[in-house]
């Protein structure tokens, strides 16, 4: 019946995607635009000269590693949820929360490294941008950690299993996005430095 319907309408039935998941994707689009705007501003401003040169903190390499690990642990939690392995969901989520905090601490150290290099938030925009990128990303990451904790709590109540995945799936999407966003920012800074 579905096939005939699509024929007669000349188009598909409504997608009927999970409405909250869809809204999350749209939210992600708007976050992408915020950072696209920022990084474009960086390029435009850099092109005008009077640009402070300094070394990127080495901590970024470690925090990038941490964020990749956290995505892996979250993915393991997700695989466990699909197989109804309740203990591993909790373990995976807990590991991700801890790695999330570790990432934030690492970003804090990157700021200290910048200060040690005499690069401050107030000063040449080259340095200010560095703080804005990392800070704005960290704020989003904190919202992601809060989301993770909410999911962890419902996992501790055994509410997350193969029949009830929507919340976890949204969390996974958001977290992978935040990880990808950081990797993009890091790559961007490496290339346009």
């Amino acid at each position: 019946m579905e096939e005939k319907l699509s024929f007669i309408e000349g188009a598909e039935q409504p997608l009927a995607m999970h409405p909250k998941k869809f809204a999350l994707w749209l939210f992600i689009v708007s976050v992408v635009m915020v950072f696209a705007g920022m990084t474009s501003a960086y390029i435009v401003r850099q092109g005008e000269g009077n640009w402070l040169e300094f070394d990127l903190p080495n901590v970024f390499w470690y925090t990038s590693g941490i964020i990749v690990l956290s995505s892996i642990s979250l993915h393991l939690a997700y695989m466990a949820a699909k197989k109804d392995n309740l203990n591993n969901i909790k373990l995976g989520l807990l590991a991700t929360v801890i790695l999330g905090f570790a990432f934030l601490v690492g970003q804090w150290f990157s700021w200290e490294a910048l200060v040690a290099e005499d690069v401050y938030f107030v000063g040449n925009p080259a340095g200010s941008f560095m703080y804005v990128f990392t800070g704005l990303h960290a704020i989003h990451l904190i919202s992601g950690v809060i989301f993770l904790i909410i999911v962890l709590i419902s996992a501790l109540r055994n509410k997350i299993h193969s029949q009830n995945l929507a919340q976890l799936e949204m969390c996974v999407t958001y977290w992978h996005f935040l990880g990808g966003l950081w990797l993009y920012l890091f790559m961007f800074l490496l290339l346009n430095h």
Partner: protein
Amino acid sequence: MAVANVSAHDAASTHDEHDHEHHDNFITKYIFSTDHKMIAKQYLVSGIFWAFIGGFLSVLFRLQLGFPDMDMSFLRPILGGWIDASGKLDPTFYLALVTMHGTIMVFFVLTAGLSGTFSNFLIPLQIGARDMASGFMNMLSYWFFFISGVIMFASLFLEKGPAGGGWVVYPPLSALEQAIPGSGLGMTLWLTAMVFFIASSLMGGINYISTVINLRTKGMSFSRLPLTIWAFFLTAVIGLLSFPVLFSAALLLVFDRSFGTSFYLSDIYIGGEALPNTGGSAVLYQHLFWFLGHPEVYIVLLPALGITSEVIATNSRKPIFGYKAMIISMLGITILSFVVWAHHMFVSGMNPFLGSIFMFLTLIIAVPSAVKVFNYLTTLWRGNLRFTPGMLFSIGLVSFFISGGLTGIFLGNSAIDIQLHDTYFVVAHFHLVMGAASFFGMLAGVYHWFPKMFGRMMDDKLGYVHFWLTFVGVYLVFFPMHYIGIAGFPRRYYSWTNFSFADMYTDLNMFVSVAAIVTFFAQFIFVFNFFYSMYKGRKASANPWQSNTLEWTTPVEPGHGNWPGEIPTVYRWPYDYSKPGSEADFIPQTVPLSATPESNLPHEAKLVQLEKEIMEEDEAMLVGNESKES
């Protein structure tokens, strides 16, 4: 149904989300409502409120511009200290007036008031949905807008006045408190209000997009969507992509203002003293701002164009000419709107080569715009025209869109822009093409959908008077401005009495001011009509304009969930007006092709058989479900 069951007391205790007979009390029904229709009305009433504030501010500065020597002491009861001892308007307050007029009209009236009202009201009704994808987020969207409005309104009463750096708030003027009084607390409140406004628009936009994509009724494919919905959908997409960039720009401005960074500031001397800020770029702000600012023009205009398509087709009793061409040109406008922003910056010191690229891209927009204009005209051509007030305002929109659009071709040329930039020519251009046109689209929408909103008709005669006064008034205000602009009058100047060239245009400026004041007061006819008809208007029939779209298949005053029974299925596109062979001159979208064999086109006749099979299967399924339930 909800209306019949209003009970002010013990509503909370009986409230049950699964209960279809909602017992709303005053607060849940009129204030913290999650019903898209009520939220739309909240947006509409707020929009009307802001339109009057914004219009009133323009009357004030028009008085100054038309009658620079006038004694304005009679305004002291309202403006207080802003009128000095000799009866003159304070020059910095003049700048604040212009700034707030722009901000209010662009964001609060023509973005929130227009998109907020009609996207909320029409999307669920025209696609066949019970409500928005998330009613709660929709409510939140309105209340963020409300908070934003409260902050902006409060800033009008600050001791140093509201923001005064122009609605575009370019730094360094807006970034340095020392620059003008309006860059102090007024600017801070402006930025705060805009952050709430951006959050509100994003929540609204996310809702509109997910509703249109996910909640269409059976048979409502994208190729059967009314053009209104296409317009609202694309508007929401533009907003989703451009408002976050305004947020970025505003965030960096906040850092510059409050934390001492130098994103936009460099080498500035105040009173001979150099500021510590170095390395910033003011043009950077312009790039970021206009990346929102230009799409914003289409956020304002597209919904009005969508409403016009619907109203003109209905009242011409003809299918819209070039349905697909309309969609493609709206898509074209959507995409192009993101790659033309720098035409606002031709004289900012930007690379002239870049200017010629942006000029080229800008002029391409003339193509989809012209396609739309020709389609409106060809829809009207030899139509069975019914001049309802909504129709008149739609035709008015087409007129403004043409006369304002033509001057866009001049302004889009980077060479001519050197002469015309920041003159009254620009003011005339955008007030016609985006201001008045969108405003007329909004009014057309109000006149056309008022029966669906309030179950009563607005008075036609008052509508005609309102239309003619406004239509003629708008031309009388903005047409002379082209001449003033070509003569070299710059915008945002408090007065030109010091320039001798300005003497010969004194009369023209006076004329414009008088026309503006008359046009402003003509709007009170509309307000009276609006509120009077809400309670005392003639009762509306179910389908007063004999229209095809789904909203007219609901009860006269639809309750929660819009349709009391099943949501109707859609079998055809929304523009089957005066179809050859058909007895009636309109065939609603809910009429199956199999019921109209006399008017089916050859390709539609082929679809009838399949349609019948599906309906039989559906019938069998329905019967099956019912027997299971009982």
